[in-house]
């Protein structure tokens, strides 16, 4: 309940954790959640990413969440303009970016105001006090300076003159004010690295690579970083520094990197194409939060990857379909509004039965909605947006690193079954990051592909008896000249056929082909107590929160199990049996109950729904309390 005094005056009573332990030995922490928040222009995403990266390289488990406004830059100093970055780190088993925050670093009053609700009781607030001017305070409706009244009672507050101190540190360099401003975040990074006893070297290296051609910038940023670090070291503000505990379970040996979902997806696609020996083709149109897939793939033209920034989402998928017809491994990436526009062409892709990967990085809807927030509300759309009976394969990625595996699986299935695959990711895992063990090529599934070439017995719609896939016969192949199109096709020949029986047959073929993918789905893994009464079911990015909630409940001796679905169309074969084994089923979704609707219909299971539709991922605690409620109830 104490208010922390400013650093200049050495405080009597200032240990953030324990008043008695004012030693140099850092205190050990388990899972710790840190949030950086500031103006859109304050470089919070970079600060957060760098710190997360450092922690990861330093062997910690990390998971992050990026939150930024829908505008490039909302008015400076306003609530709307606040950009936030949260990360959770710990010795092991980090499944989410954390619920409540242990340490909040804020660059201005707006960031404080809009983020305070996320901070734990007694949590640490590191505040750039220089921005708490009358004008800034007024902008966000603070009548008094919260650093000076009792508004922050209950937190451990550390006001730091970040702006002033950065300026001081850079004075000798004679850089412009703008650069000082841009380096503030590195000061903060230096400070927080000190607080958590993290090294600076990898950031120093990164600065050199990133600003290779701008030595002035490297210098300024380096100075700011070091100044922040020294500031922690050299004054009495923080009585204690921290270290994250050593891990107990040995992490799987190997080479690790830290990466976000969009990068993981992009690399998965390149890897799959490379293994299948196919040219990777991306047809895309920029849209938040999917654009980075376009950016990332554009950087890898050497594979070769062709990236086609089309005039709109319709042309993007159209070009991808053309590319697939002629033999590329074709992909199109977008988010909700763009998916809406692709609807007609997706129908064509299903009808012509060619491989195609369609990526939807979900954001908040409907309409333009919440472009920079996450949501899981496009499952219905993936399943059923097309006119006509138009089934396809749907996969959902469940974490940043899982995006890699999901991309590989999508490519594998689309090539094997010759039908489009939709990948559902979302804004949380697309921009969220975690550490990832780089797989060896041997760990990855086989991905062979051979174009059809046998002119003697070629029929464009003659199906493989097992997969029902039709042959992939590409232009340039002598003797296989044929026509495809969106009118109903005659079985086997692929000619136009509008007759009743043939249409019925083809409708059923297309449905059956997708249904047969169940053969490729491994048995579901049940986590927690298999013999519990309650089963929690989720899909997509809620994986971490559900898993952790089930672990926590188990630790509390509450008996609960969970399964998480990667395959949403078709559903795994064993799902029905599993659902039947549990007295209660709880479905957890960031929507109004889309998987819930699907499972109730198929399995006639009276599942309950934990729904959250506010643009923010589930907290572990939200799921935990629901579990407790249901187990008690």
């Amino acid at each position, binding site marked *: 309940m104490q208010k922390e005094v400013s650093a200049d005056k050495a405080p009597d009573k200032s240990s953030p954790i324990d008043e008695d332990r004012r030693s140099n030995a850092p205190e050990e922490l388990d899972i710790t959640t840190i949030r950086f928040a500031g103006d859109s222009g304050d470089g919070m995403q970079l600060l957060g990413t760098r710190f997360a990266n450092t922690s990861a390289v330093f062997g910690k488990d990390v998971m992050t969440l990026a939150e930024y406004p829908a505008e490039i830059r909302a008015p400076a100093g306003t609530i709307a303009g606040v950009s936030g970055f949260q990360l959770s780190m710990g010795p092991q088993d980090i499944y989410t970016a954390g619920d409540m925050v242990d340490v909040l670093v804020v660059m201005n009053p707006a960031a404080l105001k809009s983020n305070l609700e996320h901070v734990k009781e007694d949590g640490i607030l590191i505040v750039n006090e220089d921005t708490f001017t009358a004008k800034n305070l007024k902008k966000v409706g603070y009548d008094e300076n919260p650093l000076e009244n009792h508004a922050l009672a209950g937190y451990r507050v550390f006001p730091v003159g970040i702006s002033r101190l950065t300026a001081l540190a850079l004075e000798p360099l004679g850089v412009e004010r703008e650069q000082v401003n841009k380096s503030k975040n590195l000061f903060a990074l230096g400070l927080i690295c000190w607080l958590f006893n993290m090294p600076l070297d990898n950031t120093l290296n990164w600065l050199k690579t990133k600003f290779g051609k701008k030595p002035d910038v490297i210098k300024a940023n380096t100075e700011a970083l070091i100044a922040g670090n020294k500031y922690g070291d050299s004054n009495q503000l923080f009585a204690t520094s921290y270290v994250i505990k050593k891990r107990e379970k040995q992490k799987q040996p190997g080479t690790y990197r830290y990466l976000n979902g969009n990068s993981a997806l992009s690399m998965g696609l390149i890897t799959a194409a490379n293994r299948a020996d196919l040219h990777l083709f991306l047809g895309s149109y920029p849209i938040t939060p999917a654009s980075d897939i376009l950016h990332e793939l554009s950087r*890898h033209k*050497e594979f070769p990857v062709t990236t086609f920034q*089309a005039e709109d989402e319709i042309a993007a998928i159209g070009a991808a*379909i053309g590319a*697939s017809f002629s033999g590329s491994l074709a992909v199109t990436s977008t988010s909700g509004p763009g998916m809406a526009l692709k609807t007609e062409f997706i129908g064509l892709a299903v009808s012509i039965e060619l491989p195609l990967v369609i990526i939807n990085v979900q954001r908040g809807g409907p309409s333009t909605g919440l472009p920079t927030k996450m949501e899981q509300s496009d499952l219905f759309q993936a399943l059923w947006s097309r006119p006509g009976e138009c089934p396809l394969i749907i996969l959902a990625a469940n974490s940043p690193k899982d995006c890699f595996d999901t991309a590989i699986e999508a490519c594998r299935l689309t090539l094997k079954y010759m039908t489009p695959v939709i990948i559902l990711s979302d804004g949380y895992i697309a921009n969220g990051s975690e550490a990832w063990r780089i797989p060896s090529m041997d760990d990855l599934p086989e991905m062979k592909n051979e174009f059809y070439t046998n002119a003697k017995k070629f029929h464009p719609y003659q199906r493989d008896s097992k997969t029902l896939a039709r042959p992939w016969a590409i232009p*340039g192949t002598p003797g296989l000249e*044929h026509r495809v199109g969106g009118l109903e096709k005659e079985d086997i020949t692929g000619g136009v056929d509008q007759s009743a029986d043939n249409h019925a047959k083809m409708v059923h073929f297309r449905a059956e082909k997708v249904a047969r993918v169940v053969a490729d789905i491994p048995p579901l893994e049940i986590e927690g107590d298999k013999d519990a009464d309650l089963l929690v079911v989720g899909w997509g990015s809620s994986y971490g929160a559900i898993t952790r909630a089930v672990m926590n409940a188990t630790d509390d001796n509450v008996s609960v199990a969970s399964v998480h679905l990667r395959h949403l169309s078709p559903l795994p074969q064993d799902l029905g049996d599993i659902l039947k084994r549990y007295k209660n089923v709880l479905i957890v979704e960031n929507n109004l109950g889309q998987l819930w609707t699907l499972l109730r219909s198929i399995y006639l299971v009276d599942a309950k729904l934990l729904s959250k539709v506010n643009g923010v991922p589930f907290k572990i605690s939200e799921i935990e309390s629901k579990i407790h409620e249901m187990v008690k109830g």
Partner: protein
Amino acid sequence: MAEAIEQKELVRKDYVSDVEVRWCVGCGDYGILKSFTVAMAKLQLPKEKVCIVSGIGCSSRFPYYVDTYGFHSVHGRAPAVATGIKLTQPDLSVWVITGDGDALSIGGNHFIHMLRRNPDINMILFNNQIYGLTKGQASPTSPIGKITKSTPFGLIDGPMHPLPMALTAGATFVARVPDTDGAMITDILMQAHKHKGVAFVEILQNCNIFNDGAWFPIAKKANRAENSIVLKHGEPMTFGADNTKGFRLNGMNIEVVDMEKDGVDISELLVHDAQSQDATLAFKLANLAHPEFPYPVGVFRQVEAPVYESGVRKQEHEVAEKFGNADVEKMLHSGETWQVEA
């Protein structure tokens, strides 16, 4: 990809598929189809190297009738599909077949974006000034006042002009031809094929069911000499039964002169230059309308410009040269990594 086995000479019939043609008797599309296959045979294009992409419309049924690779896609979007094909297999001969509704109404945007990129794709627009397949609504090329099923009291919307639009979008080859002149169609399609870069050809096509005779004043054999003017690169612009009339420049304007009556020497006539980088003349010619002027047909413009898919491939190769070839392991290990020992 399998290479073509040594080909015997191909004849027109080789390019005709065994799908029964489903256009109305008398439709202008028949003639175009025939001239197209004649061009194929004259060019001796290996059948497997040709890919025809269309949208939706009567005209867009075209790919079914040609025994090459074909793709009947969705309404208005054939240029996008064709671009994806060309980017994957730059050495295919890719043709987009489209109608006035398909290319200029729903597909207007893809049309201009394909042209601005300049891939080596040939786009043939069958302009019958009507929606044929949906049974007779106004199209963007229907004239003001036109009575159609959707405009029972006359069309109000001003028309779109395909050739000026193509020129403005940046098409490097632009031509127009009536459906009644099979030889000219064949000739122009062959030129379009040979042109490196995007080629846009408008064919004035008769829909005898829903818009019969729309082009008769220009396209009927008997009217062609007087009411159209055939543009030939490097030659003076003359027309009329005995080629005694022609175009002359007057300030920035084109005027019609009768060499005999007006006492004008042929040397005073405008000489067609399809290859000038400046598109002003082509644009002016493309804007001339019948009956004020004879309607220009032939090749309006043909200029060299960087070809899209070549640029794309070149960049891919340059990047590979600069940063090293495809290496998945290397990519995965790029950036900061760390080791966890066993």
